[in-house]
């Protein structure tokens, strides 16, 4: 069970228009990623709310198809 990096980036950008997404494949196995996401949508939101927006963008794949996605969210 793994996801392609491009699919992850696309899903995040679809949900957070204008976001900058940098994705690192931490283990080189297509299953452990770190995403650094910069978006104006995060402005004024708590970290919990920011991460929930990203999880929402992944439409249930997080915790299922996608095992490990470390998140770092930044306001634009």
């Amino acid at each position, binding site marked *: 069970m793994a996801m392609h990096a491009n699919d992850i980036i696309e899903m995040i950008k679809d949900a957070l228009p204008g976001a900058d997404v940098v994705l690192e494949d931490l283990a080189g196995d297509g299953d452990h990623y770190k995403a650094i996401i910069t978006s104006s949508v995060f402005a004024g939101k708590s970290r919990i709310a920011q991460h929930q927006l990203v*999880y929402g963008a992944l439409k249930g794949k997080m*915790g299922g198809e996608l095992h490990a996605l470390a998140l770092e969210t930044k306001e634009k």
Partner: protein
Amino acid sequence: MSQPAKDRIQKTVTDNDIVLYMKGTPTFPQCGFSSTVVQIFDYLGSEYASVNVLDDPEIRQGIKDFNNWPTVPQIFVKGEFIGGCDIVREMFETGELKTLLANKGIALTA
């Protein structure tokens, strides 16, 4: 989510100042993210309760629904969900975590 799972989580996070919902145990974490949060709280020297979600399918699903948060670990302080591994690590690195615990009256040795 089932009412019993919700009630059990609510009771656990109310009865304990700090609760880590994690995969494995503090001695034998079974996931790198869970291991990280254990190391942070051990470093700070705060006492915490832990729940191994791998032991209990009802809680494993329940904890995801409880906070609308799809991943484990999840960390609670005085009944409040403060985040997963990334947020706790960020808060630790900036010093916010220590401040939060101190403000909540939790004793630390570090």
